[in-house]
């Protein structure tokens, strides 16, 4: 059993300004229900990203197992990096959520704002490790595409929530 102090860190999910309107999301949700995982922009993982995943000593903003990691500016839940996955991969035996929400996080290394997608990994019980909740620009449930209190595994075949990832989609044009 974990101690509160280790586990209950600050918590919730924010979203980028430009996420599609909820009705569009709803349509996509229907469309994508049960859809297989489609790589969004099929580019290889960068060596820097791999280095970041390799663990060992690094500052909090560069550590994918730390809630302060720059890509997590709007994540909520258990970090898949602490559950057998990485900042952008689901743990073995889980399934990514085809529906998700989008955030914008600034990378201190290059000063750029990146659009990231926060996906839940689904189908196993709560991972329980590295609970992390950050809430920039998060909105209540009536702005569903900006809301992180909902279980984004809702449309998965196995819809139980396990952990969350943050995946770089590209650079935001807001520079």
């Amino acid at each position, binding site marked *: 059993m974990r101690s509160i102090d280790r586990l*209950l860190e600050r918590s919730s999910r924010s979203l980028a300004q430009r996420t599609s309107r909820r009705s569009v999301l709803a349509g996509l949700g229907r469309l994508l229900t049960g859809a297989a995982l489609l790589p969004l922009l099929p580019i290889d993982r960068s060596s820097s990203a791999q280095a970041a995943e390799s663990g060992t000593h690094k500052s909090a903003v560069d550590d994918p197992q730390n809630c302060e990691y720059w890509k997590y500016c709007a994540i909520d839940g258990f970090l898949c990096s602490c559950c057998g996955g990485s900042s952008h991969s689901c743990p073995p035996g889980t399934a990514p959520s085809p529906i998700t929400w989008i955030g914008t996080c600034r990378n201190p290394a290059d000063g750029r704002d990146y659009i990231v997608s926060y996906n839940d990994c689904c189908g196993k019980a709560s991972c329980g490790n590295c609970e992390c*909740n950050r*809430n920039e*620009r998060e909105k209540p449930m009536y702005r569903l595409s900006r809301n992180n209190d909902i*279980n984004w595994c809702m449309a998965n075949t196995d*819809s139980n929530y396990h952990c969350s990832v943050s995946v770089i989609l590209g650079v935001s044009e807001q520079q």
Partner: protein
Amino acid sequence: MQTGLIGAASLCMLGAASLAAELPPPLPAEHLTVEKLAPKNPHWVYVLDEAFFNEIDSRVYLFDGDSYRQLGQIDAGFNPGINLSPDGSTMAVGTTYFARGAHGARTDVVEFIDNSNLAVSGEIVLPPKRANTLPTYFNLAYSADGRFLYVAYVTPASSFGVLDPAKKSVLSEIDTAGCVLVIPSGPNRVSSLCENGRMLTVTLNADGHEGSRSLSEPFFDPDSDPVFVQGVPSNDGYVFLSFLGQVHEVDTSGVHPAFRQPWSIVTPAERDKEHWRPGGQTPLALQRSLGRLYVPMHRGGEGSHKDGGTEIWVFDVKTHQRLARWPMAPLKLGPAIAVQVSQDAAPLMFVATDKADVGVFDALSGHLKQVEKQQLGQTPWFFLNP
């Protein structure tokens, strides 16, 4: 096993009686019974433990704010919503189960709990659309007369189900595209909060299907100052609170919701210079007879709206005056993430902290009477009065 020991045990009694004549009389045998609940007390509170670290095992504890004892437990499954029938005799638990714990076939269901003995008295199986989200008063809710039970759906398309709790059946599903949650009024009206800051109100006909619907003018700005969905019941409707501290009182007693002039719980300086904000999982509670609003407040900026309150601020909803500020730190309590107040004349305030402690306060004086140290679950995020 017990009954199998009657013989042996009886012999033992005789043996003891003869051997121990000089001793005080032995304690008599005890019955093994099942505890009965006393009649409900306004100082009882239902505490929902989301059990976030073992989320398929959410539960509701019934806690007595006078004796500080746990009176019982109601199992609540995964990501539950809960609410009470108008007479308080039944708790409706809307939840999700999986055939194999956290995997396997999904069953969305409303289970009905007899609050007099905390036993499951029945259930209604739902389409697998129940909104899996955090608890509010509006995940599921009864009509004022208890005839209908409404359940919020999100797939992520939004709609709601109309149930017949008497016949244990699903009557209809009503689409609410762009609007979410079920805010009940009267015998047959259901309002929802919309992405554009309006309130959708659907009026049902006698068989629980849609009769008519109306959309209000926007009553808040979802971009500049969104309201928390965690509204609370008032005497003639509901009170909503915004991220920046605007109070939106809605009168839902009429056919169409009426929105009173919003007022602020923070001064411009408190808001813009000191950055005091409401926040938490349940960021407000209302004592309806006294007209007092209790709000966990913290200092923070954009994205801090779920941070717990370092203080509880108390307001008079008639005069809009702040009556008190009650800091948590001097009480050795962490930030307040959920608050509730009892509705009797000697009200108690219940405060859950980010450390999963629950404080019991005199809601008039702010005196801390008791702290339950991590005894009411992993993540107690929502309270219901009995």
